[in-house]
């Protein structure tokens, strides 16, 4: 990372943002195409496993801010680890939804984790998991669920693996929020309308517009976020651009989408 000042200028010519997200998303789309189906949460999990050299992954949807429902697991152990947490009411997936931060438990034998989730850790070790990585599927105050991965051998994620998993967690979040109630089923890729998640997801205007629309539409923030995305898609415009118009008070959305538009 270190070097002579100015050396970074060459790297700076290439945009940081889009390339990585595009590459990750392309892998998800290719995985779905390889199975001859629309993109789904199953593809996100499968790509997460290969990206992180993990042994399995799972996705749980949240209700009232806690993991509540197993949406998908890539293998039996993944399913058991997810169900274990739902049964015990403790574990990394609960923690990531409470803190909105990932839990990167690279070695479950570390005494910190035994103390943190005594029941989960002991049983996870018995099931053959030595490392567990959990990611919140959140957008600010909106909590959609949690994504978990396990490895049979202890060891940390690389920076590149972490970056890929955060991007995949974003994609899963958008897919869960796009399905309305989030319980439509495993193979529901409708939340993405067949397109890549917006690659400039992390812009203040999108978050501000979500808050504004929740008032305009009289709906929870999760639904306001989904409406914002749906509107951008229906107009074939970038999410960030539409959000900018909402924040500039040049665009209002209405409960009846037929009346959308105008300041």
């Amino acid at each position, binding site marked *: 990372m270190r070097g002579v*000042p100015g050396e970074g200028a060459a790297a700076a010519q290439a945009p940081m943002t889009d390339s*990585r997200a595009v590459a990750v998303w392309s892998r998800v789309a290719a995985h779905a195409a390889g199975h001859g189906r629309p993109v789904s949460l199953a593809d996100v999990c499968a790509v997460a496993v290969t990206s992180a050299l993990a042994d399995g992954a799972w996705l749980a949807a949240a209700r009232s801010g806690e993991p509540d429902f197993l949406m998908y697991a890539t293998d039996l152990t993944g399913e058991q680890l997810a169900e274990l947490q739902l049964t015990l009411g403790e574990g990394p997936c609960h923690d990531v939804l409470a803190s909105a931060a990932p839990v*990167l438990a*690279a070695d479950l034998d570390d005494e910190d984790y035994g103390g943190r989730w005594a029941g989960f850790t002991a049983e996870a070790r018995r099931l053959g998991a030595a490392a567990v990585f959990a990611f919140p599927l959140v*957008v*600010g105050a909106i909590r959609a669920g949690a994504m978990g991965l396990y490895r049979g051998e202890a060891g940390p*994620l690389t920076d590149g693996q972490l970056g890929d998993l955060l991007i995949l967690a974003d994609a899963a979040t958008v897919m869960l929020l796009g399905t309305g109630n989030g319980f439509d089923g495993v193979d529901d890729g409708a939340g993405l309308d067949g397109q890549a998640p917006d690659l400039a997801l992390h812009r203040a205007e999108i978050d501000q517009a979500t*808050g504004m629309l929740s*008032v305009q539409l009289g709906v929870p*923030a999760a639904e306001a976020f989904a409406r914002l995305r749906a509107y951008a898609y229906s107009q074939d415009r970038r999410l960030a651009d539409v959000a900018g118009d909402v924040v500039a008070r040049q665009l209002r959305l209405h409960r009846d989408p037929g009346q959308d538009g105008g300041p």
Partner: protein
Amino acid sequence: MDTDLLSDTFVDLADTMVDDFDVIDFLHLLTDRSVALLAASAAGVLLADPRGELRVAAASSDAVELVELFQLQNDQGPCLDCFHTGQAVAVPDLTATVQRWPRFAGAAVSSGFRTVQALPMRLRDQVIGALNLFGAEPGPFDPMDLRIGQALADVATIGLLHARNVRRSETVAEQLQAALNSRVTIEQAKGKLAERLGIDMDGAFKLLRDHARNSNQLLTDVARDFVNSRTGDFPPQRSRRSGQRPRPGRGGLS
């Protein structure tokens, strides 16, 4: 240099970190004081997200043009170079850098800025972001101001990462993501409040921050409760989770 304000700033920053504190509120204190102390017109903290982005965690003003300037540095600009090299990057005259950073320099100059300085935020050998200072007049920042600016950036890094708790390298990534999501929550709350009251984003932020301080709650807790409240009334009802947090010694915060 206003030495009284400088002393107050370090006292306030240290004071804040003694308790359970809100990271974004803390970074805003830092950007506001950077402007007041360092002859800067604007200041911002950008954090490096492992997704491959620089993300704005705090800025001294929410003026759209300023936020855009920070965001532009995902693609090019002194903050990106500072992050890549881990070294401070000084740009005494932005008009001389139009070739190096055409979009960034053009946007900065048309927003009324002539000079920019990026100071790295480092924990041991890891660069987690940068403190970005903008000035309205061409010419280098005063070297003493820059030393103080770097000290502020170092204190901010420690505060941001709750560094006394950082034992595993994983913890840095976990803390950064929590901070970045706090920022998103606060932006959602600002939008909701701005729409509700017909005010601008700066005004909404100030109301949220004042309410958090006056009621001894963390800014992010207030923001989350407000975003999730069904009624949309402000101030929001406290959720079970946020609860009362006694926070002695906060009198010095402005």
